[in-house]
């Protein structure tokens, strides 16, 4: 019988700890499929964040490092500088990348560090139980914005892809989502390209994946995906924000 669907080799057999309906599982799989398709599992080193994906080091079958909160791009920089022929990626959430790790993110981008960053934006701190994130939407109710995010006192959400694409450094910035089949397919394409860019030495590629958190949003998984479509994507429009090689290839 022909096999039409199997677990990527870049994933281990360790069961994921993510909540029911969480999209981390999809994103892990997309990364793993990319590593498989490019045949680079054996030369890839991943960097896990602090946040919901903290235990990603158990799930990816490549070598892994667990970084301090927000520091993954600095750790990845060290790895890439000493092993330029290996493939280095970080997998980070919004609190990790856009709050405590903003300096590391911006500077890795401006150096056009030849690494791949998978940035999962679900507008909330999941692991610690649903606090306001740098990407929480105006008015969004969280544990630490119980009356809704008030932009007068709590500021506006950070649009990471827009912000980083204003820099001269980075090679490729794209925002994707995983709330429906079409978007998942696009996300896969973007993630694959982000790894290809690194192999080709093009430099810093960041894929922002608009994601959902049914548990901390207090929604069913389906409702959460609808909320992504109706609220997240309008604020965080999908698309390519920077692709320095695009014009050259045309």
């Amino acid at each position, binding site marked *: 019988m022909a096999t039409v669907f199997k677990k990527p080799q870049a994933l*281990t057999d360790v069961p994921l700890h993510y909540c029911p309906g969480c999209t981390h599982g999809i994103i892990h799989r997309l990364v793993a499929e990319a590593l498989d398709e490019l045949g680079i*599992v*054996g*030369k*890839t*080193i991943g*960097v896990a964040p602090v946040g919901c994906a*903290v*235990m990603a*080091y*158990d799930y*990816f*079958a*490549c*070598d*892994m*490092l*667990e*970084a*301090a909160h927000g*520091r993954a791009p*600095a*750790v*990845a*920089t*060290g*790895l890439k*500088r*000493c*092993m330029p022929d*290996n493939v280095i990626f970080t997998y980070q959430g919004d609190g990790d990348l856009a709050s405590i790790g903003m*300096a*590391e993110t*911006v*500077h890795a981008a401006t150096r056009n560090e030849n690494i791949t960053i998978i940035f999962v934006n679900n507008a909330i701190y999941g692991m610690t139980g649903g606090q306001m994130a740098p990407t929480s939407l105006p008015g969004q109710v969280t544990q630490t914005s119980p009356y809704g995010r008030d932009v007068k006192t709590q500021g506006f959400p950070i649009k990471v892809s827009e912000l980083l694409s204003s820099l001269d450094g980075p090679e490729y910035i794209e925002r994707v989502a995983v709330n429906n089949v079409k978007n998942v397919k696009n996300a896969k394409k973007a993630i694959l390209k982000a790894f290809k860019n690194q192999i080709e030495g093009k430099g810093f590629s960041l894929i922002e994946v608009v994601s959902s958190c049914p548990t901390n949003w207090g929604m069913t998984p389906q409702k959460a995906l609808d909320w992504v479509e109706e609220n997240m994507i309008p604020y965080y429009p999908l698309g390519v924000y920077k692709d320095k090689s695009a014009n050259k290839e045309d």
Partner: protein
Amino acid sequence: MTDKVLMKGNEAIAEAAIKAGCRHYFGYPITPQTEIAAYMAKRMPKIGGTFLQAESEVSAINMVYGVAGAGYRVMTSSSSPGISLKQEGISYIVGADLPALIVNVQRGGPGLGGIQPSQSDYFQATKGGGHGDYRLICLAPASVQEMADLTIKAFDLADKYRMPAMLLADGTMGQMMEPVSIPEVTAKPVDKPWAANGTKGERKHNIINSLYLKPEILEKVNFERFERYAQIEANEVMYEEYMMDDAEYCVVAFGIASRVSKNAVTEARKQGIKVGLIRPITLWPFPKDVLNAAADKVKGFISVELSMGQMIEDVRLATNCKKPVVLCNRAGGMIPSPEQVLDSIKNLAKEVK
């Protein structure tokens, strides 16, 4: 041994690190250690190494974490306020059992403090520094030659025990020039089967990590780490004794304070006071046994420090307070004069017969 050359202490550290096989340096500018970065910026690109001026000390130490996790020799350097910023990363490096060299060319504190030499980071360097239970191997050079020698030693010890080592110098040691011969090192490659450098499809994945959610496992990891620390305390203590054979009084001092103290001891001997010096070279492991043994022979100790008195606590602990221990100190970037130390010796000799 190469020919002697005149070098600043900071430059000696940098050249010795390169000789030790370190090809990756990450730092952030801060006085009085910037010569290390400047030296690395010049040399590393010529020898296929990495010099990277990071966006912060926090980033620099995390770049060190990455390289150390991949199994390569790596270092960072800074001065007191910058070392405080690195503490988070140092704790993670310890927690993941990675070897690395951290150089602290100390300046006065707390806060922004000043830029003149100090030894007031002793507690931070020898008691842990960041969060959690841990120690760093802590080496205290007292000459430009030792800046070089102990840099190489620090890399070797870090690799041997899979933990970070700190070279604890001060602004004087960093800035002063002395003739130095940088040892030729035939770097013994240390096998690092734990390194995250790609499975090549030949082994299960390696994980560099300090997270243990099960407390009984985390406890076990801590106990195992401290078993290693016990080996280090048993095997790696380094110190220098000066005129201790017939000494009735003992000065304890490290780094630049030991140089000043040596002059004072020599002068006191001329004046008929039987005084000697014990200079800890490893601040952790602290030379407890040699001090405890000395406490059975001498009448009292003087801890000479560029701080408000930090090492003095370890001297008292090591000697079980068997004999009086007094402090002779300057702080905030000031250095005790030989005369001040001599006065302190004379006072002790007068008060403790």
